[in-house]
């Protein structure tokens, strides 16, 4: 990597897992070298103004759909990581439902190659089953050797309990985590939104909460029996939250993530039949929104993960039941958390940065460079956040190739001012540098 000029982040408040302190941060050759008040800027150094801001480890998204290879009209690794950087993320975990799917060493190596020079570190979640078809295990050991720490068939859940059990046993031997998109297909049965009062009124087939909860319950039982680590993707119902809470109290090795749309939007948003509100798991009623917010507050949920799912505009113009599910999320996640969650900023950063870094195996304790405390010697993956800046979401101004954000026109409080990736300032004053 070419040598980047020295960097001084001045005037901010450093906030990481070890606490909060007023300090400037100096970065040389991609690493933090000094964290102290009143630092001087050496000649030739780039100075990033962090006045009024918080300087934190870069955010880590456990759940991003980069679409490349196979659906580049919706997003590419380049545009997706640009959006990530603008959202304060220095690492994303790319989901395997690409075309071809990420179920082989070749396809994973291909993504790593495409991601070289990207504006965020791209880690990969490998598929659990070949082709994500839910029938045969994918070569997890081979992928783990390439550095894959998280496996999931996301887009779908593993339908067969027997196969999931075998996958968990195998995974335990490898020390990797299996992520589950909990959706029992026989219960979800072609549903396009949450099954309830709204779906009945709108005349749309619905997915009942049980479709998610039966698989959460099943996998908790399997994790308990096998000792394997299960991470629940996009938990969305009160029932799922209760199950996870009880499992953790019992010491079962499960973790859970929540997507921002599940703590900010409800199923009533579908009233106008606009497919921008169509997502899987679907938007739920207020009781479920309240439950996932409580899960984020009390530690039942370990992370906020965007489930960034770009779709070309023509596809979101289809009738509601035909349109593909999914919403953009990378550029709005942090701001939605700061605006809508009644939590201290350090807790929000934990949910978006160092906790997901651990689940993804990207933290310093696992040989990674993400989420770690800002101390001399650590790799400089940072974001600088202005917690009071307000901005309005404009779909045409987002870096993604697609426009499907449900927050168009919404005013949010909290904005990423700068993002530093391995010492390189990739975002300065909310503008991507490349």
């Amino acid at each position, binding site marked *: 990597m070419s040598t980047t000029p020295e960097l001084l982040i001045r005037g901010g408040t450093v906030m990481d897992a070890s606490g909060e302190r007023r300090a400037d941060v100096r970065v040389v050759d991609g690493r933090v070298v000094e964290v102290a008040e009143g630092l001087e800027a050496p000649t030739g150094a780039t100075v990033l103004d962090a006045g009024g801001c918080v300087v934190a480890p870069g955010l880590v998204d456990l759940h991003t759909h980069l679409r490349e290879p196979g659906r580049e009209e919706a997003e590419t690794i380049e545009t997706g990581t640009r959006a990530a950087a603008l959202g304060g993320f220095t690492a994303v975990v790319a989901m395997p439902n690409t075309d071809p799917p990420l179920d082989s060493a070749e396809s994973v190596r291909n993504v790593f190659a495409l991601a070289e020079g990207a504006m965020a570190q791209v880690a990969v979640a490998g598929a659990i089953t070949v082709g994500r078809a839910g029938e045969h295990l994918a070569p997890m050991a081979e992928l783990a050797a390439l550095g894959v720490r998280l496996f999931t068939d996301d887009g779908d859940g593993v339908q067969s309990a027997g196969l999931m059990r075998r996958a968990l046993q195998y995974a335990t031997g490898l020390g990797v985590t299996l992520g589950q998109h909990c959706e029992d297909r026989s219960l979800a049965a072609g549903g396009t939104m949450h099954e309830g009062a709204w779906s009945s009124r709108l005349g749309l087939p619905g997915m009942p909460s049980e479709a998610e909860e039966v698989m959460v319950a099943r996998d908790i039982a399997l994790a308990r029996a096998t000792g394997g680590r299960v991470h629940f993707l996009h938990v969305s119902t009160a029932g799922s939250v209760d199950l996870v809470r009880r499992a953790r109290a019992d010491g079962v090795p499960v973790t859970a993530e929540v997507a921002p749309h599940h703590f900010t939007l409800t199923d009533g948003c579908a009233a106008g*039949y606009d497919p921008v509100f169509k997502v899987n798991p679907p938007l739920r009623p207020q009781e479920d929104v309240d439950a996932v917010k409580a899960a984020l507050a009390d530690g039942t949920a370990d992370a906020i993960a965007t489930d960034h799912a770009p779709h070309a505009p023509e596809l979101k113009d*289809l009738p*509601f039941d035909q349109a593909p599910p999914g919403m953009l999320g990378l550029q709005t996640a942090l701001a939605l958390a700061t605006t809508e969650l009644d939590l201290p900023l350090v807790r929000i950063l934990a949910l978006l940065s160092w906790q997901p870094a651990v689940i993804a195996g990207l933290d310093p304790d696992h040989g990674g460079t993400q989420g770690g405390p800002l101390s001399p010697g650590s790799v400089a993956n940072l974001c600088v956040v202005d917690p009071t800046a307000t901005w309005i979401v404009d779909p045409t101004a987002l870096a993604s190739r697609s426009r499907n954000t449900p927050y168009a026109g919404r005013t949010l409080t909290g904005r990423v001012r700068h993002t530093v990736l391995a010492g390189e300032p990739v975002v300065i004053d909310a503008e991507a540098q490349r």
Partner: protein
Amino acid sequence: MSPFPAHLLSMDDLDAATIAEVLRVTDSFAEVGRRANPKVPALRGRTVATLFFEDSTRTRMSFETAAKRMSADVLSFSAGSSSVKKGESLRDTIETIQAIGMDAVIIRHSSSGVPARVAEWVDHCAVVNAGDGWHQHPTQALLDLYTVRQSLGGGQEGTDRFRGLRVTIVGDIRHSRVARSQITAYAALGAEVTLVAPATLLPPSLEGWPIAGVSHDLDAVLDGTDVISLLRLQAERGSGAYVPTMREYSAGYALTARRALQLPPAAIILHPGPMVRGVEIASEVAELPSARITDQVGNGVAVRMAVLFLLLGQGHLESEAA
């Protein structure tokens, strides 16, 4: 009376006064239909497009006849025809239609919500929902109301007599846009609506629905019914999977000759069609004088003329103050 809405997407768009007005105006169009030359120049120079993504010759012809009887020009686009190419997006089709210049577009689609989305995309064009997925079929409900009003004695008293009227809707309510429209329509006029269906054919939630009750026992509600509205089991929408067999369904929910005898003498029988004789209604019951099914079809044209007239004849383009 509040101004007629710009589109007719759902019975929710109409309040009781507006519904009464539609029925009153329908009387005038019913008279037109009785003439030797059933035509008036009311919509001369206007263009009405029918866009039927789901096949339905009867409903499409009813709308087209309505438009033609008002001297409008009619363009038909149907799913099978080459005008609606496979793969051409709905949005592109609508843009093409708009570019040609339509005053109204009448849409039937198998996906709920399509007319609502189209209404957002068009300018100076009235959208009429001719049936969207499971959601609504407002003109069907209006013609049912008109048929009942005829039986109740018509005129202004007609809609007052709906108050307290006991209406029973039987069948696959879960998947029925006709049922949803009917429930809203009857309730708006003060009728008491009871739903009768096996539990699997009711919507997942009835929260907020303006109904008086639900029953799984058809026999128990018959003698307290003034209007019985039968729905078809919609095999093409997958209803068959919700009951073990058609025979079991008919045993519990078909209006057989025996059941028809249990109805009060003045009760009216309605069916939106097409009927599957032997499944939800016995053949001989469909021929009873109390079965108004043929009237429903005849009234359909007049009701649709009234709807088009109210949508296009009210000068929305001009400001109210003029």
